[in-house]
């Protein structure tokens, strides 16, 4: 059965991501939907509220490109390298509104959003200066013990983008390795765009339904985007392009550096295929990892 969800990234972004939207790009340093971020830049979306626990290079690029008016986040750095210069510059100049949490609080906001709860309670945040700068951090008293806990409101992105290993045409997304924030981020959103390394037959999914991390009915678009998470890694597919992360620091030392990079690698290519071609087979091949397969398990037949 085809639901017509399988599409191109160009179409998916055009159809589902609009100016002013709250967009959550999922993936906790693993399987970051870079290709989707680039397409959003390419289609020149404006006034987005970007939400992401770890903004990473992708949000740095989108901020530099002028897509964002606000960032909701919990850790804004270049993982393993240093800082995100566009993010820093924008915040230090007061050009970007920020709404800041801890990781646990961000995840709790997504959990509330996914669950249809208006808030989520957690034991954190109190005693830090974060509640003083973020009025969305409040307290709640336990009706049983009388304890005071922190509370954060639900986060309901207009669109969440996930990148994963595979999905079927209905958008049943299977992920292995680090799952991070992907499930809650998907269930919390009004729309989900699933970018995957491979679109597979629905029997592949049904063969092992415990691996389905995001079921098809919360997914609006399915896009095959090989290497769509480059320069981040995807378990079983490719490694992080660490050179890219290190060089990013130099590339972005000046606003001109950003502009030149965006011109060359985002506006200068039509889509992810052209991007990959420009990276070159040699570089991509270097990132591929040796295979290591799981052993099968027996589900049995009950009929």
């Amino acid at each position, binding site marked *: 059965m085809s639901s017509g969800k399988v599409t191109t990234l160009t179409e998916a972004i055009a159809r589902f991501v609009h100016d002013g939207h709250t967009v959550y790009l999922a993936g906790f340093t*693993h399987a970051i939907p870079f290709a989707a971020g680039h397409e959003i830049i390419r289609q020149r979306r404006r006034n987005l509220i970007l939400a992401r626990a770890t903004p990473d290079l992708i949000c740095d690029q989108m901020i530099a490109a002028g897509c964002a008016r606000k960032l909701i986040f*919990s850790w804004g750095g270049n*993982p393993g390298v240093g*800082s995100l210069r566009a993010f820093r510059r924008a915040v230090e100049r007061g050009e970007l509104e920020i709404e*800041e949490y801890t*990781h646990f609080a961000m995840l709790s906001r997504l959990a509330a959003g996914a669950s249809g709860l208006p808030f989520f309670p957690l034991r954190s945040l109190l*005693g830090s200066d974060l509640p003083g700068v973020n009025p969305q951090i409040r307290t709640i008293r336990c009706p049983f013990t009388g304890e005071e806990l922190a509370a954060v409101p639900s986060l309901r992105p207009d669109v969440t983008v996930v990148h994963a290993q595979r999905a079927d045409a209905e958008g049943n997304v299977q992920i292995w390795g680090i799952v991070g924030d992907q499930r809650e981020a998907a269930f919390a959103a009004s729309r989900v765009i699933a970018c995957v390394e491979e679109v597979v037959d629905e029997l592949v999914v049904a063969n092992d339904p415990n691996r389905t991390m995001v079921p098809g009915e919360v997914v609006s678009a399915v896009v095959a985007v090989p290497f769509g998470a480059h320069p981040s890694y995807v378990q079983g597919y490719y490694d992080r392009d660490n050179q890219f992360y290190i060089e990013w620091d130099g590339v972005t030392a000046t606003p001109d550096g950003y502009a030149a990079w965006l011109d060359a690698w985002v506006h200068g290519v039509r889509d992810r295929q052209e991007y990959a071609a420009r990276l070159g087979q040699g570089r991509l091949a270097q990132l591929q990892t040796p295979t290591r397969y799981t052993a099968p398990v027996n589900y049995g037949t009950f009929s």
Partner: protein
Amino acid sequence: MPWTPAEMMVVAAARRLRDEERVLVGIGLPNLAANLALRSHAPRLTMVYEAGVVGARPRRLPLSIGDPCLVEGARAVLAMHELFSWYLQGGRVDTGFLEAAQVDRFGNLNSTVIGAYNRPKVRLPGSGGACDIALLARRTLIMMPHRTERFPERVDFITSPGCTARRCLSWAGGGPEAVITDLGVLEFDTEGEMYLAAVHPGVDEAKVLAQTGWPLRCAQRIAETPPPTPEELTVLRDLDPAGVHLRRGR
């Protein structure tokens, strides 16, 4: 075998980890310390990474906190919200490692901003899981280079509460146990104030005091950290052969 101050700092931190405990590890220096402990005196240490990995056995230095190398050989992978809820908030993390840009005399940590929050001089990455770990781990170990500007009288922003703020919270964990620097080891007295407990070999007490932004109290007898053993250094350098973390100028 000669060693660098950074190596001494990691070794001193590693030695504080106990066998069979569960440690929530960050990348960078904490990752080195935990992996050194695992490969020396704490073979049954359980390394937990905030990305959701339990019982990790990374074969390389993780490039980020969500590196797939953490998954190979691990016992379990959980969703992040499960990890924070079931492990950290559930009271199952014995030790949390923290780094920061600034620490004050009560162990409050700043990794958010230098200057005012709304008009920052330097915008730092922010809490990540640090505030959560500071409040919920049974104890925390803090690792950071010992420089005056990083040990101010007051931090510019309390990202992760130390000994004092957390006292009002009935549910908080044990808080900071020690700050391990490249000069020595600082512990906390019953009032929650930091004092110099040990200096590393060759470090002068006066230098530590000079590089601390407030009049630092000292233990009656300041111990000297035993130097890294050749075994410790061998394991450590094997973990970071390129010296990504151990040789860079921090």
